[in-house]
């Protein structure tokens, strides 16, 4: 697959933040040598999952060009985002990549009617020459999320339910007919009885509107439900990625295994094994500054080399794992921990 066939191509991207004062301070590598790509013709839902502080949100800011990588490149439709400089080019880019944020009640100002945002977006992106034509564009976007202009016009955010307003937020993202939607924890603030309608919506967008979705979440259960592929992040690295059934049904990386095991299953049958004791890190920063594999301090299969050198990416069937257990010389050990 050449670069031209890729909608999004993230190549060895690293983001470093300097924390601390003028003298001293330390370097925090929020995203560390991350690569992945999305196919141009085959829309898909790609999940980036990980715990807080794993670099998910920094990565999403990179993809929205809100942040520039310290090293590496992000190509969108074959073009390096670093070369998108002037306003009109940036507008073209924004038209194609749209975000959906976590808390819909923060996305919209409580003092402004929600339909105003939809019209603004339509006019700003020149999807319509005037307000009247814009109404058609807005109506169309709302229909795609199962709402109508009648239901939302002249309504303030507090007059809509959490599920409805999050759908308006998705509709707003759809107005410019994007190719990629970046959804950062879009359901974590939505009530349980309304959550699945938002999740199902992303599936529908992929199938009917042919929009690719990058779904950023810490919730592995919804990730399993909607995504095609998944990348598990730990302290800036994608440590395991591949088709979601492979990664979550039979996780290979010890961290993915721990993560999957820790998700409480909504059934009382696994209570005993779930209550088995686990070790937790005491402080936050230690793992970032650790040399070698970031999981070495908690890993049950840790080896000498893990603490010294970053593990390489190893291809195991359809997925990539960043772990020494699966490198060639460690084959027997790997076989031993297959779940």
């Amino acid at each position, binding site marked *: 697959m050449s670069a031209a066939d890729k909608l999004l191509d993230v190549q060895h991207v690293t983001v470093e933040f300097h924390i601390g004062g003028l003298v001293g301070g330390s370097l925090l590598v929020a995203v560390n040598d991350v690569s992945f790509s999305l196919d141009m013709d085959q829309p898909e839902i790609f999940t980036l999952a990980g715990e807080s502080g794993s670099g998910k949100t920094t990565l999403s800011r990179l993809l929205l060009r809100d942040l520039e990588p310290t090293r590496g490149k992000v190509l969108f439709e074959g073009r390096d985002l670093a070369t998108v400089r002037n306003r009109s080019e940036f507008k073209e880019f924004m038209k194609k990549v749209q975000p959906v944020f976590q808390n819909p009640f923060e996305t919209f100002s409580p003092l402004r009617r929600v339909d105003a945002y939809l019209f603004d977006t339509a006019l700003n992106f020149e999807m319509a020459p005037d307000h009247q034509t814009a109404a058609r564009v807005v109506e169309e976007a709302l229909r795609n999320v199962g709402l109508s202009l009648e239901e939302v016009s002249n309504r303030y955010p507090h007059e809509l339910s959490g599920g409805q307003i999050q759908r308006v937020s998705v509709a707003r993202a759809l107005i410019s007919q994007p190719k990629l939607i970046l959804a950062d924890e879009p359901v974590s603030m939505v009530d349980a009885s*309304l959550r699945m309608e938002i999740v199902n919506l992303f599936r529908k967008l992929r199938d009917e509107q042919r929009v690719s979705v990058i779904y950023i979440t810490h919730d592995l259960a919804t990730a*399993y439900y909607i995504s095609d592929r998944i990348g598990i992040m730990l302290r800036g690295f994608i440590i395991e990625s591949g088709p979601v059934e492979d990664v979550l049904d039979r996780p290979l990386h010890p961290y993915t295994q721990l993560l999957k095991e820790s998700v409480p299953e909504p*059934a009382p049958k696994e209570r005993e094994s779930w209550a088995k004791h686990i070790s937790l890190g005491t402080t936050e920063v230690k793992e970032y500054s650790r040399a070698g594999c970031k999981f070495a301090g908690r890993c049950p299969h840790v080896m000498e080399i893990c603490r010294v050198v970053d593990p390489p990416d190893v291809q195991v069937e359809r997925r990539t794992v960043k772990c020494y257990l699966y490198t060639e010389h460690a084959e027997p050990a790997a076989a031993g921990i297959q779940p």
Partner: protein
Amino acid sequence: MALLSVENLSAYYRTEIYGISRTVRAVDGVSFELKPNEIYGVAGESSCGKTTLIKVISGNLKPPLKVNSGSVSYHFGIHAVDMLHISQEELRRDLRWKEISYVMQGSMSVLNPVRKIIRTFEDIVDTHEGIPDKKRFFEQVREHVNRLGLPSEVLTSYPHQLSGGMRQRVAIALATVFHPRLIIADEPTTALDVVVQRGVLQMIKDIQAMSNNTVLLVTHDMAVHANVADRVMIMYAGRIAEEAPTEIIFNAPLHPYTQHLIHSLPMIGERSNKVSLRGAPPNLANPPTGCRFHERCPYVMDICRTEVPELVTVQDGHRVACHLVKENPL
């Protein structure tokens, strides 16, 4: 004997601004009991009255919240307490921390950011019991903290030096320093990562098993209840929809709302199509007549629109408020 009996409790928020009065019926006709030595889960969506219920039973009544009717009574051994008629002074002196303690979502707001953890322990113990012997006190706190599986170093750390999960566990250690008979945990793991959440919940379970006290665990996360609670109450729009032992809530739920909650949960390893309920949770300033769930219920009947369903016992320990169940008993 029950540790806590709540009978027919109604607590409303009453506000009057510019002569327009508004009543939000956050808790309406709720009755239940907490037994000694159990983990009792309360589940429900946002604004279903979970937090209001906790406020009332922990004696935290401040305007505009008012109790309209009902009773809340505790039995600590031979000592009975009427929570709705106790003075603030007695509450503070005899009950808070000692008999009833509270673990909340943001542990950062419990810990003083400019003092080491051990000083926070000192503050709390000093106000409630006094510290005659400092050395012995430090020893006791260290023992307490170690027994709960935390390293002694946390005591000499400042809150910002600890990870979120460790802070939440310190908050739990603080809440259990007097071995209270009731621990109220309000969304104790909501802001935490899954691995950390597991560690914190394990700690709550361990403490309960060690001291045989009662834990009231409030969270919207059904998966947490499945793994931690002994009994679960499902609230909807200020009322109890269903209450049963955890196994029954998950394996044989009777209320349509509970059934939906359970069946709509996505699970790893299973991808069948899940759907949401139509509509949204009602506004409690103007709740629907009859059963408050009727507008969203797939099995709605005429009676549901006019008559409030009673909470009936269908089996030992299994109570449901639904006309369907009343009409076709098991």
